[in-house]
């Protein structure tokens, strides 16, 4: 049955997530100003509080489902800006889970594994990557050379799942993945990147110089299986984008109300000021994008792997965060620019979601190919 109401179980998890987001928000400005500092794996306030992501994933009875709830928890966390519990898992863990042998999984199952795909010359077109592994017959090791950029969890992670070209002993070539642990000679993590926003988000470049890797670390994820981790993460990025967008909307609504400007939905556009009309249009963008995220997550729960829908959710969320954070500053005027208020951070943080994990343009390529029945060669 079509229904959009949260259940009591959903509400319980989300109100806990929201309470923690309010605490997290207290730290948001600090880590915005101190981008070289990693936030603690667990904040002191979180000691007695459950990780809301764990709650969502426990599949508690009466909830709207683990995937839906997880995405809504992420939205709350991004509303606050800082998670009280640092995520234990990276997208590299997803690759490990889907393609590793049982022995490999056993070895790294408790590691935080970043995913390393993007390179200086290969962002939106990862098929262009140049990082290469050659096999050393004498030692039975792989020798990895290349550079990876914009890598999340680069500093906090224990290892990286690196997408690389390979040249096998028989001369065959292709694309594959290797897990490279921190401390491996030849593997260097660069300094924190200096970004417009999401400054608390651990992001560095990785360098591999004649980095020797045992054959056991060859995870054998191919290009397709590696890229498929984004089917799950794309709508999640949409949810995160909407967390930032809602923070901007909430702040704007509150400040407008303090000045006696109330938002009413009863009349039409000719009954209200331009400011209220604009606010309602921004709110509509938020609601619309949120529903595309829920749709994608709901499909996942039906075991229908969403592809177009995952890209729709990412594209809609990314665009919503841009429009809403820019628009809210317009509505509140020059005072909204001040670092005394959260909008400047929302504006800067909100700009990432239409860029990372596949730009809005890449999402539109995926959607267009799918609805037109085109291959990657037909529509580049």
């Amino acid at each position, binding site marked *: 049955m079509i229904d*959009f109401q949260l259940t009591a179980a959903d509400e319980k998890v989300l109100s806990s997530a929201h309470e923690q987001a309010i605490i997290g928000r207290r730290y948001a400005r600090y880590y915005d100003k101190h981008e070289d500092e990693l936030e603690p794996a667990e904040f002191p306030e979180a000691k007695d509080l459950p990780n809301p992501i764990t709650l969502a994933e426990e599949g508690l009875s*009466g909830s*709207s489902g683990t995937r839906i709830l997880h995405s809504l928890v992420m939205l709350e966390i991004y509303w606050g800006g800082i998670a009280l519990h640092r995520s234990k898992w990276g997208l590299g863990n997803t690759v490990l889970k889907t393609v590793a042998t049982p022995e490999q999984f056993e070895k790294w199952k408790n590691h935080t594994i970043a995913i390393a795909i993007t390179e200086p010359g290969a962002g939106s077109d990862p098929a262009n990557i140049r990082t290469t592994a050659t096999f050393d017959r004498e030692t039975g090791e792989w020798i990895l050379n290349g550079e990876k950029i914009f890598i999340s969890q680069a500093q906090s992670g224990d290892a990286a799942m690196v997408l690389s070209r390979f040249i096998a002993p028989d001369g065959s070539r292709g694309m594959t993945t290797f897990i490279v642990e921190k401390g491996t000679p030849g593997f260097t993590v660069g300094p924190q990147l200096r970004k417009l926003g999401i400054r608390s988000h651990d992001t560095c470049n990785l360098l591999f110089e004649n980095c020797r890797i045992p054959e056991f670390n060859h995870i054998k994820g191919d290009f397709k299986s590696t890229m498929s981790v984004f089917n799950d993460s794309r709508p999640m990025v949409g949810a995160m984008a909407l967390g930032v967008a809602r923070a901007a909307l909430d702040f704007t609504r509150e400040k407008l109300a303090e000045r006696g400007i109330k938002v009413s*939905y009863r009349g039409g556009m000719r*009954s209200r000021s331009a400011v209220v009309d604009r606010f309602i249009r921004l709110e509509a963008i938020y*609601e619309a994008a949120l529903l595309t995220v829920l749709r994608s997550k709901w499909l996942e729960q039906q075991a229908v792997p969403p592809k177009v829908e995952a890209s729709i959710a990412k594209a*809609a969320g990314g665009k919503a965060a841009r429009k809403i954070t820019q628009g809210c500053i317009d509505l509140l005027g020059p005072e909204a620019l001040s670092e005394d208020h959260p909008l400047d951070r929302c504006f800067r943080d909100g700009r990432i979601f239409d860029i990372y994990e596949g730009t809005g343009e890449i999402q539109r390529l995926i959607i267009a190919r799918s*609805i*037109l029945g085109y291959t990657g060669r037909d529509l580049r």
Partner: protein
Amino acid sequence: MISFQLTEEQKLAQSMVQELAISQLRPAARGADDREAIPSSILDEIWATGIIQSQGESGSYSPTLNALLLEELAVADAAFAIAAAAPIGFLGAVATQGSPAQKKNLLPLFAGDKYRCAGVAIMEPDFAFDVSSIRTSAIKTRDGYRLSGLKGLVPLAGSCSHFIVVAQCDGAADAFIVDRNTRGVTVGEKKPNIGLRALEMATVSFKDVELSSSARLGENAGCDAQRIVDSARTALSAIMTGTSRAVMEFVMPYTKERVVHGDALAKKQTIAFRLADMRIETDAMRWMTWKAASIIEQGGNATRQAHLAYTYCGENAMWIADEGVQMLGGHGYLRDNPVEMWYRDTRTVSVLEGAVGV
């Protein structure tokens, strides 16, 4: 519990209406627009599916089902969809807000096997009209009410047996059920508009119409006129979703076939990306509509959601129809192709307030 799951019953009804829309309704759309009238055979075909009159049967009223079906009808033609949504709006208002006597007297009138029209009259023929400042008034008299005012853009006004008229009464919006044969009720000439030309929309004037107290929707209990507005906005959102889908589904094969500078139009990113945006927005429009409809169905306050859906759909449907014309170039401007009609229809639907319901 958040769910997009259609029931088996909803799926069946949806595919039945989809089939009718493709085989009978779409082929008749252009002719109806040209002749500025919907053939009665088309109205009877829609009626024969039972989707309209069932909304007056006890326990069958379902805004989510109506939203689904109005989208399918609008994929064929927006005017036909509104011809269904007008009596649905009337029946829905009576079924959910009418007094027991009103239900008993009115609902059985719709049990026949021929299309029967009744409508909701909210809009007024006045620039800068807004639903929050209705000028039609109902003044309390000794035996009931005296209704005065003008209502515009009433679909199939000439064929309506009854109108639900939203009017100001004692400083608040209220609704009155008016038999079109009551003294003082005059249905004006049908006047063609930019779009929905087949819908025979007309102005209805109410000049000192004496109504008994039993004419007030809900009688002594009164009604919530905002719910009628919410329901209308949701129905219009469903219809805009349908027209947008029609545009998208029409331009996709065209842009794949049409070769420009050596390549199919659809293989150019500027076109492909806009097609992707059409898909993103029609999806979002549908979910916005479903959410508003489900809140109405559960008896909740849908004012915010219905308004957001209507605002979002209005803006995006217009964008999609506009792009549809553009992608066909000169052919989009010709009346040989339906996109120019969808462009006109969308401009019309996206400024309507009221007149229909889910």
